[in-house]
Each structure stands twice: as structure tokens, then as C-alpha cells.
């Protein structure tokens, strides 16, 4: 009961701290609106220009002719432009200069090996910085290989040689990104929600230190209440405060901006709760490592901004170059964003699970470190 009493009054006081509340609620909502409007173009899918790929034919037999015919067909030509090269080196130089996105190599003996019914590989070299265009090449080659395998099976059954032939038997379906990819406001609603929760580190930072600052720690120490009860009450109060703020942001953005929070809102709430634990634990840990809560508070605020930036909170990290994109992995914001985006847009469940595990591991580590320092200082 005493834990609940401490938690209740902590929450009450947190919600009366209008300065912090403004930062925790109004700021993210303003940022969602401003960034969502200003950077809308970044998230609008554009027409995809043709992709140049290098083609090195070392085989020069029947199957290579079939592949060439396929690659130069009218349908494929809308997506890719074939540039024949004489060597791998020539192709790599073009890829390095961003003049080509990938290299397709038909190795020597490709046709003969296929005709013998043995396995053989078409070599594809991608530029790691044009992953999207490389994926187009891979998709096209997968299409060809499927067709080639089908023809081989037919030939083995009937003995009738068959060449690649295009049939107009596909129904054209227009594909839309709506609901499958985030609009800018959807994107920023997630990243700013995550940022807000991470700003909750300040509650973890001040929750116990403020008792010393305002002398109420003397009263708490002289009251018939265990120190652990005080710590738990303060922690619970901080966690509930941040969690309620996160829920307010979700509800407000859904109602006011029609943000897409996906079909599994319970899991989104679970991510929020997990990140809240991490934020409070991190705040307490940093607070206990330092002596001056003002200084540790400033450090945490700065840290949250950096974490938000490298996780692509202000601008998608994938568009800020590979260095920033890679740095994102060290940010707790990135983990929570990944878990949320995967949940909302049907991404990889394995990635989501890994992200959640990482969040819980970091949170547990932060609490263990904070607790051990607290216990040492109490003794």
C-alpha cells in the first residue's frame, strides 16, 4: 500500500509539472506535425527510373542467348538497361562509380551444365548502396531461372527444345503503397513516440534524487517505510507517468492525424511499456553514476537527441548515408522503432522478437547496475 501511495503522489506531481509535461506531450505532437508536413516528399514513392546492369557473357551458348533475349525483352527493358561488359573489373568500376547497380555473369559452361541437368549458378554482384535496385535485378533473375527450370523439365519430359517465349497471359494489377508503407506522419508518429518515451529517462534520473534536493528524503527516512518501498514507489510512479504520456500521444495522433498504428495495437502498447522500463532504468543508472542530477539530466537529454537522430527519428537514417544507417543499431530508439514498424507494416517477426529481447536485456542491465550502485551508496 505504501508503494502505491508513493507511486500515486509521484504520478500526481509529475502531471502537475507543466514544464516537463509540455516537453513530453506538446513537443512531440508539434514535431510529428511539422516534420510530417515538411518532409512528406521523402516518404512518397516516386516513379522508378530504369536500372543499369552490367552483363558479362562468358558462356556464349544456347542458354546465354535465351537469357539475353529475356533481358532485352520489351517488358524487362522498362525496368533495366543492359550494358554488356568484357570483364568483371570493367563492371566493378561502373558499379563503384554508381553507373551500374549490379553485374550478371553467365560463367563458362553454363549452357552445357544446364543441358546435362546439373546445377549451375548465375553470378550476380550488387552494389551494397543500391540495395533497392539490386533487389529488382534479383527478382528479374529469379523469374528467368524459374522459367528456365520449367523449360528444362518440359524438354526432359517431351524432348522438345523450347526457347524463351513471352505470353500475354498476366493480369495487370495496380499496386499501391497505401497501408503498406508509412506516410511521413505515420513514420514520425512512431519515431517521436519513441523519442518521448526515451525522454522519460529524466523521470528515472530525478525520481530519487529530487527527494534529496527537496529534503523530503529526511521525512521518508524517518517514516516507518522501507527504502525498497520508496524506490519501488518512485519507479512505479515514473513508469506509469511515461506510459500514460505515450498512450496519450498514440490516442491523440490516431484521432487528430489518423496515424496508422496497425492492427496489433496491444503489441505496440507492449513495446511502449518495454521501452518505458528501459528509459526509467537508464535514467536511474546514469543518475546513480553521477552526483549532480542537473548534470546527468542534461547529459541524458543530449543522449536521447543523439539516439533519436542516429535511429532516423528526425530523418530516415537510410537516406543519411551508410555510416548513420549502421550507427542506428546502437540506439534503443532503433530497436523500438524496428519493433513498431515491423508490427504495423507486417515486417519480419524475427527482427521484432530480437529487438524486443534487446530492449529487455538493456533494461534489465540498467536496473541491475542502478540497483547495485544505489545499494552501495545506501550502505
Amino acid at each position, binding site marked *: 500500500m505504501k508503494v502505491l501511495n508513493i507511486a500515486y503522489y509521484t504520478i500526481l506531481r509529475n502531471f502537475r509539472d507543466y514544464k516537463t509535461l509540455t516537453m513530453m506531450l506538446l513537443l512531440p505532437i508539434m514535431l510529428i506535425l511539422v516534420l510530417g508536413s515538411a518532409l512528406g516528399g521523402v516518404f512518397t514513392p516516386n516513379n522508378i527510373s530504369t536500372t543499369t546492369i552490367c552483363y558479362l557473357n562468358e558462356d556464349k551458348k544456347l542458354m546465354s542467348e535465351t537469357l539475353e533475349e529475356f533481358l532485352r525483352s520489351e517488358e524487362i527493358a522498362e525496368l533495366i538497361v543492359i550494358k554488356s561488359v568484357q570483364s568483371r573489373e570493367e563492371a566493378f568500376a561502373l558499379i563503384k562509380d554508381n553507373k551500374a547497380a549490379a553485374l550478371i555473369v553467365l560463367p563458362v559452361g553454363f549452357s552445357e551444365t544446364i543441358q546435362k541437368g546439373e546445377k549451375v549458378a548465375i553470378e550476380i554482384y550488387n552494389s551494397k548502396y543500391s540495395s533497392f535496385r539490386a533487389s529488382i535485378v534479383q527478382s528479374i533473375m529469379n523469374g528467368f531461372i524459374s522459367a528456365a527450370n520449367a523449360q528444362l523439365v518440359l524438354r526432359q519430359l517431351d524432348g522438345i527444345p523450347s526457347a524463351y517465349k513471352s505470353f500475354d497471359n498476366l493480369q495487370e494489377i495496380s499496386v499501391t503503397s497505401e497501408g503498406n508503407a508509412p506516410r511521413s506522419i505515420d513514420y514520425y508518429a512512431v519515431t517521436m513516440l519513441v523519442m518521448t518515451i526515451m525522454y522519460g529517462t529524466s523521470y528515472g534520473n530525478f525520481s530519487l534524487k529530487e527527494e534529496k534536493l*527537496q529534503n523530503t528524503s*529526511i521525512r521518508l527516512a*524517518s517514516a516507518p517505510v522501507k527504502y525498497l518501498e520508496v524506490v519501488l514507489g518512485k519507479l512505479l510512479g515514473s513508469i506509469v507517468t511515461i506510459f500514460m504520456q505515450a498512450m496519450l500521444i498514440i490516442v491523440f495522433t490516431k484521432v487528430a492525424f489518423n496515424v496508422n498504428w496497425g492492427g496489433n495495437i496491444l503489441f505496440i502498447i507492449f513495446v511502449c511499456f518495454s521501452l518505458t522500463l528501459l528509459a526509467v532504468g537508464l535514467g536511474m543508472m546514469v543518475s546513480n553514476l553521477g552526483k549532480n542530477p542537473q548534470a546527468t539530466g542534461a547529459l541524458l537529454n543530449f543522449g536521447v537527441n543523439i539516439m533519436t537522430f542516429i535511429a532516423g527519428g528526425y530523418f530516415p537514417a537510410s537516406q543519411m548515408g551508410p555510416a548513420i544507417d549502421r550507427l542506428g543499431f546502437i540506439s534503443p530508439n532503433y530497436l523500438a522503432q524496428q519493433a513498431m514498424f515491423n508490427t504495423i507494416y507486417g515486417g519480419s517477426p524475427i527482427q521484432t522478437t530480437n529487438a524486443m529481447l534487446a530492449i529487455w536485456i538493456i533494461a534489465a542491465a540498467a536496473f541491475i547496475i542502478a540497483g547495485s550502485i544505489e545499494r552501495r551508496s545506501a550502505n
Partner: protein
Amino acid sequence: MQRQDKGQIILFGKNFDGNDSSIKKDIGIVPQDLALYLDLTCYENVTFFAKLYGLKDGLLKSRVQEALEFTGLWDRRKDLAKKLSGGMKRRLNIACAIVHQPKLIIMDEPTVGIDPQSRNHILQSVKELNRKGSSIIYTSHYMEEVEELCSRIAIMDHGKVIAQGTKEELKTFVTVEERIEIELSSINYTLVDNVKQVSGVKECTFKDNKLMVVSEKNSKNLSRIIDCIAATDVDILSMNIEKPTLETVFLTLTGRTLRD
């Protein structure tokens, strides 16, 4: 709360190690620095601390009301603590400490920097709490407060108790002689000589119509001095017996060197 360096703390007949909840529940602390949540109302502040002492339901409500009424803050119960004046904050500081009706109240300079009305209210409250049965350890640099309130006094200097006892006992530490100033209708040398003959009188002088008598400590000769005067045809207009104050005792014992 500091742990003791050595020795034992015996409270209510029990050895107190600083953690015993059954002892803590009977102690109330009024720290020198305000220990309040400025963003909670008076009512919420007192309620919060009352709940830590296990008060609940009807008893909680009545005790909170009692504490706020006792400190004269019931009418301001809905105001945030930060909106109160310095004196009111001090009174709220006391309300938070007494809401659970402790047997022992430790007050550390509760009247520092407040207006005379609040100060007077606090001093009366301390007397009232004592009258209701609470023992009070009252720390102060204001000797007139100590003299008014305390039945037993300990003077501490540099963290050590250098003297303790009742105020009368403490005064005997510094008093070496007693001074009496008597205003008379007239003075003559015969009267002065007669007073000088009284046992214990060390010195008797006069200026205008005032007679100044210096006696040895505890000579208990006041009635005999008055008898001497009454034997002459002189009227006593006023009399002032100069006694040492606690201020004198304090300064004598601790010295006049400025403290940090």
C-alpha cells in the same frame, strides 16, 4: 538521518538501530529546511505523509484535518504548498510531522526566518503538543524560545554537549553574584551602611534615588535588605533583580568567537 558513530540510542525503552518501524511510527521530525512537496496542496502533503504512517480511511481524514487545524492551515488546505508564505510553509512542515500524533517530536529550528505571528503560533503549538503528551526535542539558537519552552536544556558546541540541566541549573554555572537595583523615595548614608551590614552583601552603592546592591551567589538575603529599608522612613518605589539569561549562559559557555 545519520547513523550514530558509537553508543546506543534508547527510545521508548528499546534499542533503536535507525530502522525499527515500531519505533519510527512514534517519532515525528520537523527538519530545519522545509521538507514539503511544493507542487502538492497542504491537504495532499499531510495526507501523503500520514499514509506512510499507516493511517487510513476515517482516521486518516480526521487526523489530517486535526493537524491542519492545529497549525492554522485548514482554510488553506486546497492551496499548493508553493503558494504559501514562509511562515505558513513552516507550519505545514510541522503539520506533516505531527499528523500521526507521535510520542516524540524532533524540531530543528522550526521558527527560522518567519514573521512574529507565525513564530508565536508555532511556540504556542509546541507547548500544546507537549501538554497533549508528546515529548519534544527542540533545537534552536533563539535562547528566549528555549527559555520559554524547555524543561531540560543541553548546550552543544562543536558537536558535543558542554552543559545540560534545567534553565535554573544552567544559570548557576555562570552566576557568581546577584545584583538588585532598588528605586527609593530618598536615600541616606545610614540606610546604605545598614544594607552593607546585611549578611552576604558585598557592595552597596547609590546614584540619585537608586540603590545598587551586589550580593554573593545564593545568599538569599533579599528579605533582610527589604527589612533594613523598611526600618527607615523611606518608601520602595520599584525593585529589579538582575538574573543571568540563557543567552548569557550560552555565550559564557561557548565563547563569543564567531561560528562557521
